[in-house]
């Protein structure tokens, strides 16, 4: 029971990261029609940003939770303005290749300066320790990660599906020319959306820094699992990516308890099964 709930907790935490990352991917995909291969790299940049803020500027965890995503988001917007912008109208495979190249550059630079080993990032004092729930011991920080990521996911969902800004965004995805004719600056909206998606990944990076160590390749292998999550979920809806993200994290945790050998590959096996039954993914629209 102890071990099972511990694995479920790990699964929920991984699920939080899957959800935050696939959510960012979905937001970016919606506006730019690009699968952002650099998403793992910006997640890593978020974690490193928090590390620098603490060790160079003495800025702690709480401000970093805001500052790091904003900084990395601005970096993302620069990337969109200088490079991704030029791919509009081209085959969307070029977007994947370009962001793959960017990921290699970012990861390579960090590997040069920090090697491949991890840097520690301490859990903030307020979130030290744990609570005994009777059937298990819940470290406070881990509980915080799950709650925080749920709140952010739902806030993003609300922003896109329920506000006027979100309505513009969704309209611009359907027909950018028409939305422009209404006097809305679509290119600026695209840039901001990319910044938002990248910022979400960076936030996931900051959240993960105290749990997983800060490493240059922390996003590299994670991103492929997130791709599988996206394929399973189908990326048809924002809510879809959130639910799929958490659900797959939990399934992964359960596998780790019942059949640990398959825990690395269970998400991919599920992807194959889902594709065989429903090629568009669970919440996906037909393309």
């Amino acid at each position, binding site marked *: 029971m102890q071990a099972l709930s511990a694995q479920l907790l790990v699964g929920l935490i991984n699920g939080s990261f899957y959800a935050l990352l696939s959510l960012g991917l979905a937001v970016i995909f919606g506006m730019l029609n690009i*699968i952002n291969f650099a998403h793992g790299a910006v997640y890593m940049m978020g974690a490193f940003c928090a590390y620098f803020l603490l060790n160079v500027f003495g800025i702690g965890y709480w401000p970093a939770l805001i500052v790091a995503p904003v900084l990395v988001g601005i970096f993302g917007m620069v990337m969109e303005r200088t*490079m991704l912008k*030029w*791919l509009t*109208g*081209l*085959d*969307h*495979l*070029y977007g*994947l*290749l*370009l962001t*793959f*190249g*960017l*990921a*290699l*550059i*970012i*990861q*390579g*630079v960090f*590997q*040069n300066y920090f090697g491949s080993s991890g840097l520690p990032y301490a859990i903030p004092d307020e979130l030290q320790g744990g609570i005994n729930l009777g059937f298990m011991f819940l470290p406070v920080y881990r509980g915080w990660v799950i709650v925080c990521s749920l709140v952010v996911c739902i806030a993003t969902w609300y922003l896109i599906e329920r506000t006027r800004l979100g309505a513009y965004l969704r309209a611009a995805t359907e027909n950018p020319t028409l939305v422009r004719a209404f006097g809305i600056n679509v290119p600026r909206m695209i840039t901001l959306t990319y910044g938002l998606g990248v910022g979400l990944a960076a936030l996931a990076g900051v959240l993960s820094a105290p749990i997983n160590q800060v490493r240059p390749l922390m996003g590299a*292998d994670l991103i*492929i*699992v997130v*791709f*599988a999550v*996206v*394929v399973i979920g189908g990326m048809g809806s924002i809510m879809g990516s959130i639910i799929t993200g958490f659900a797959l994290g939990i399934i992964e945790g359960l596998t780790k308890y019942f059949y640990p*050998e398959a825990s*690395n*590959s269970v*998400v*991919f*096996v599920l*992807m*194959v099964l889902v*594709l*065989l039954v429903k*090629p*568009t993914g669970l919440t996906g629209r037909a*393309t």
Partner: protein
Amino acid sequence: MPALTDGTARTANGRAIGDEMIAFILMTALLAIVPMTGIYPFFVMQGLCFALLACAFNLLLGYGGLLSFGHAMFLGTSGYVSAHALKVWGLPPELGIVAGVVAAAVLSVVTGVVAIRRQGIYFAMITLALAQLLYFIYLQTPFTHGEDGIQGVPQGKMFGVLDLSHPDTLYYVVLGGFLFGFLVIYRAINSPFGEVLKSIRENEQRAISLGYKTDQYKLLAYILSGTLAGFAGSLKVLVAQNASLTDVHWTMSGEIVLMTLVGGLGTVFGPVVGAFAIIAMQQYLAGFGQWVTVIQGAIFVVCVLTFRRGVVGEIAHYFKRSL
């Protein structure tokens, strides 16, 4: 959707075939004299294996418009199977190669049936995920020896006469294998099958409305590409005498894409040029450590932003020739 590659050079088909013949003879002659020059043969053999791999990949992306981001799984799978067959089962090299190629063919049928159900970037993500699944399987199954890989694979005598431990013999066997694979791909491209494939790349809906079962064509291209990529993997085992996890990792898949992109998507000779360019770069820049990754990334970015036709594609476009 705009075309993935540049079609202008393909206008005069008769002249195109002529140009390609001259280029092919030139390439074969250059490769055939390598052992007589002072060039390190191991480097060229490695280049040939990757060139075949990139050509097989290009058949799928350059002519079928399908970006497989998991082509390393064919390289790695056939490599492991060939290495195991040669070392543990003690098969002669020709049967070792056959075993590897069959394994890659089976794998391409299985993964193809799954992956071909989605298009575009989803196809890329699915192939990537399938390759990563195989990576984890090979990491855990005992026959691959995990992190160590299969080392010290014997080369043996091909058909009982060709002693592969002799560098020159090995070189010509690898060259023969490469040319065979290259011609199979060339034949496929210039067949009715290849024409249908190109029409799917340009506009799948139109091909469907013309009555072609496009899924079958795409699957066939995928299987052919995967099998030939496996052939490259088996040859590579004979050259390097080992099979390891690096050949299955997704960074290898990225390198295959890079080779093809640098050389020229949808050109006949582009992947060969690209493969040798990237292999040479890795060889000569090895001292820079992780900066090689950064340089590779930069090449990706530059190619996608300014240089989408690749080296051979740009040359062909400039001279209005087909290469």
